[in-house]
Each structure stands twice: as structure tokens, then as C-alpha cells.
């Protein structure tokens, strides 16, 4: 079913209400872009989810989930893998080991019990968003996983800081970066293992952490059981799952996944004219400021009201959300929204506003601003991999 951009999310949300029944009947949801049909299936530890690809498993959160609070339930949290043999099998928290290697005074080899017993537990609410969340809406379209907008989630992560581990190991003065590897391995020797790197100062900033719990429960296998790297404010590509190794390097990471993949145009907007290549690139980094309307979907009929409730969530790369504005006339005039409870600067921030919705059609637009001063653009920036999408997209509703 080919629908245009003005119908974005409509088919998804309409069908989302029937997801459970749909899963039982083998139904599908159609995202509002070409070749957007997605089967709805139930994977281990997950509720019915949109299946982007079966192997590796890539599952998208039904968008309606985001209207039910600032935290995304574990069984609805999106899943993204790169390699075919994922998730790795035979993982066991009782026998799992985490090693700290490389340019350290004392290499470490730790069990989960060691992590819980010997290092202070920390908790942090943080959004994990896939670098390509919304890629299917890119215009012109680009190759890659054709994601809707459900490849994001917010959770309360509990674990230990990478700094505590590095301090215990004793990082050598020559250290430059830290590489993170997980238990997933490529199918063939010619395929690059999924390894990510962070600068050593970033890795030990006291916020980058290794989580053994997510929203108060052990991590689902598909979200990184039993240990996952949490890089608050950074795109999900860095959040290595099934973590097994931290290797302190004396140079930057040479991993394929740092040097060749997940790179953005090296300029302020991380964008280039549509259809062109970037002359220079850098590794993707912090989340762009972004917001979504969650209680109304495009194409929906709403009850006409002098004071209609519109609500949603907003987030950014860690400065925090300073405000969200709502327009009901396609961006001509704006009304400030009220912000919900502050769960921390890396969390989803709920927001709500009341606007008059007289009989007829309205173009609702939510636009978030970060405390760093960044504001969502009203026209989409483009880059060759459709990373970091954060346009303030209009949602068309008809009041009746």
C-alpha cells in the first residue's frame, strides 16, 4: 500500500489498536511509505511487535506504546541487530564474564556477582534511539533498514559505571579510547565483528554505564542480556549488547563500525543537499532534539473542542528539554506545552498542551527545544544514510 507522507503514521496507529488480535491472525501493519508492510509477530519476552527483518531480528515498537508513559516497557522495547547469528545463544548470567583488557595496569575478569558486589550500583533514565529511526520517511529515500518511528525507547537502567571498572583496572596514561565488544559474532571471518569505540574521557565520564537491569528487571535477551553498554545521550549504535569485553586502546578504534559505518556528514547540521554525498564524515554522536505527538495520529478524526488535549514525548542528547511548543495551524502560531515529570536529562520528557480544534482540518506540529538551544527544524535535513531524523512533522487531524 503506497501512501504519501501526509498520511504518515495513520495506518500504523489505526492498526496498532488491533495488534494483539492481528498477531493471532498473522496480520500485518502497513507503515505509510512504499513497501511499508510489516508482519506483526511475537518474539521471546516481547509483546506483538512490527517485524522489520526476521534475521537478524529487528523489531519495532508499536507507536501507541509511547502514549502510555515516559518509560517503555521491556516487552515493547525495540530490537536492532546487525549480524546474522543474533541473538547469541547460550548466554547465562551465572557464567557470563566481563573483561577489562588492553592499556590497563590490572586486567579484570568479572562475573555479574562481582559487578553487583564490588561496584556501586547506579540508576539512570535514558532514551535509546536507533540512528536511523524514521529512515522510511526520508525523501528521497535511501537504502538500509526501513524504519518507522518506533525504533526508540526510554528505560531506567541499573548497573555500574564504566568509570568504576576502569578505575579498578587502572587506565594507563597512554590510553586514548575504549572498545566495547559483545558476545555476538559474525557468520563468516570476512564480516566485521560488531565493535564500537568511545574516547577514554567519554567512557569514564561517570555516566556511561553497564546495565544489568532495565526497568527493574533483568534485560530481555533481545535487548542485551545479561549486560549492555548504556551511552546516555548517544545513538543506539553505541549501546553494545551482550557485553563481554572492554579494551583500552592507545589509538582510536579501528573497528569497521566506527571507521566505515554509522558516519554522518562532518558539519553542523550533519546534512547535505538531498541526493548528494558528504565530502567529509565523522562518527555519529549525540541524539538530535526530537518530539512526537502520541495521542493523535495522522489522518485521525478528533472530537471538536475549544480545548483539545494534545500530548507526547520529547528528548535530546542530554542537555534536557527546555520546552515544547504546539501549533494547530501547520506552524504559523505556537502554544507552549506543559512539561511532565523530569526523570533526568537523558529521559523521555512527557508534555501536554490544549489547543482549540474547531470543526475542520488541522495540522498539528510539535516542536521541542533543548536546554542547549537546539530546536527541531520544520523541514527535514537529509543525509545519505538517513540518520538523526528530527523534523517537526505535521500530524493532520479532522475535528468533527
Amino acid at each position, binding site marked *: 500500500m503506497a501512501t504519501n507522507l501526509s498520511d504518515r503514521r495513520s495506518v500504523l496507529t489505526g492498526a496498532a489498536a488491533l495488534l494483539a488480535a492481528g498477531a493471532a491472525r498473522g496480520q500485518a501493519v502497513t507503515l505509510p511509505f*512504499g*513497501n511499508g508492510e510489516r508482519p506483526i509477530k511475537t518474539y521471546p519476552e516481547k509483546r506483538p511487535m512490527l517485524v522489520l*527483518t*526476521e534475521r537478524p531480528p529487528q523489531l519495532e515498537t508499536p507507536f501507541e506504546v509511547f502514549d502510555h508513559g515516559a518509560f517503555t516497557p521491556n516487552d515493547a522495547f525495540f530490537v536492532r541487530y546487525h549480524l546474522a547469528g543474533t541473538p547469541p545463544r547460550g548466554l547465562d548470567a*551465572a557464567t557470563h564474564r566481563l573483561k577489562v583488557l588492553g592499556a590497563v595496569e590490572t586486567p579484570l575478569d568479572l562475573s555479574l556477582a562481582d559487578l553487583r558486589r564490588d561496584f556501586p550500583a547506579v540508576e539512570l533514565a535514558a532514551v535509546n534511539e536507533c540512528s536511523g529511526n524514521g529512515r522510511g520517511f526520508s525523501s528521497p529515500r535511501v537504502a538500509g533498514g526501513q524504519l518507522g518511528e518506533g525504533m526508540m525507547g526510554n528505560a531506567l537502567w541499573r548497573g555500574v559505571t564504566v568509570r568504576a571498572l576502569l578505575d579498578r583496572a587502572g587506565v594507563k596514561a597512554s590510553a586514548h579510547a575504549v572498545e566495547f565488544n559483545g558476545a555476538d559474532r559474525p557468520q563468516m571471518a570476512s564480516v566485521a565483528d560488531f565493535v564500537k569505540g568511545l574516547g577514554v574521557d567519554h567512557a569514564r565520564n561517570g555516566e556511561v554505564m553497564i546495565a544489568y537491569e532495565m526497568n527493574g528487571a533483568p534485560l530481555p535477551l533481545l535487548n542485551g542480556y545479561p549486560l549492555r553498554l548504556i551511552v546516555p545521550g548517544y545513538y543506539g549504535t553505541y549501546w553494545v549488547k551482550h557485553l563481554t569485553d572492554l579494551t583500552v586502546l592507545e589509538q582510536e578504534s579501528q573497528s569497521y563500525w566506527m571507521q566505515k*559505518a554509522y558516519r554522518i556528514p562532518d558539519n553542523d547540521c550533519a546534512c547535505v543537499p538531498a541526493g548528494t554525498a558528504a565530502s567529509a564524515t565523522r562518527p555519529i554522536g549525540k541524539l538530535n532534539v526530537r518530539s512526537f505527538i502520541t495521542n493523535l495520529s495522522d489522518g485521525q478524526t478528533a472530537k471538536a473542542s475549544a480545548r483539545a488535549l494534545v500530548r507526547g514525548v520529547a528528548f535530546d542528547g542530554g542537555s534536557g528539554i527546555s520546552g515544547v511548543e504546539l501549533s494547530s495551524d501547520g506552524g504559523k502560531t505556537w502554544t507552549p506545552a506543559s512539561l511532565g515529570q523530569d526523570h533526568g536529562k537523558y529521559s523521555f520528557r512527557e508534555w501536554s498542551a490544549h489547543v482549540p480544534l474547531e470543526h475542520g482540518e488541522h495540522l498539528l506540529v510539535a516542536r521541542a527545544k533543548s536546554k542547549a538551544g537546539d530546536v527541531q527544524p520544520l523541514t527535514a535535513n537529509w543525509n545519505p544514510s538517513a540518520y538523526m531524523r528530527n523534523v517537526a512533522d505535521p500530524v493532520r487531524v479532522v475535528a468533527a
Partner: protein
Amino acid sequence: MRGLASSLLVLVAVAAAGGVAARETVGKTAPAYAPPPETSKFVAAPGVEAAQRYCLTCHSADYVSTQPPHMPAAFWQNEVTKMRNAYGATIPDDAAKAITDYLVATYTEPTRGGR
């Protein structure tokens, strides 16, 4: 009063130990993993055997069928080249040409859920 305080302390200690024990127990459970069976398939057309032999080594067929429709032939040529040169797929030249021709002929039109 002192006795009550001591009892409370013991209770707290027991509760804390219980909490740790419960967490450790939960944490030790190795989850079984039985995903739904893989059902997506390449569209039957000339060249499909090469696509099945090489592409399916690393990903299911839906990674192809969900790509945008109406893309030019260069899009599929680029994808096959990317899989070989960037992602390390070991595809011989003749098979790569067969796969490219198959993809251009088969996946330029919308798949309409043909998975």
C-alpha cells in the same frame, strides 16, 4: 524499645538479603530463545537461486523486500557492491551479476507485501 529496634534491624537485614537473593536468582536464569519460524522468501524469478545461496547467509529475504520501490538499477548495483566490499559477503563475480540482475528485475516494482 531497644528490642523493637533490634527486631526491625533484623527484619531489614533479612529483607535486604532476600532482595539480593531474589535478584541473583532472576539474574541467573538463562532465557530460552525460540523465535517465530522464518517465513520471508525471495520472489521466484530467474536468478533467485543465487540470491538464496548468497544473500540468505547473512539476512532474511525481507531485508530486500522492504527496501524502497521504484529505485533505479544503480540502487541495487550499489547494494550488492556494498554487501561484498563493505560487509564482507563472499560472492563470486558471476553470482553477483546474477543477483544484481535478479534484484533489478524483481524488486523495482512495489513488493506489496510479497515477502
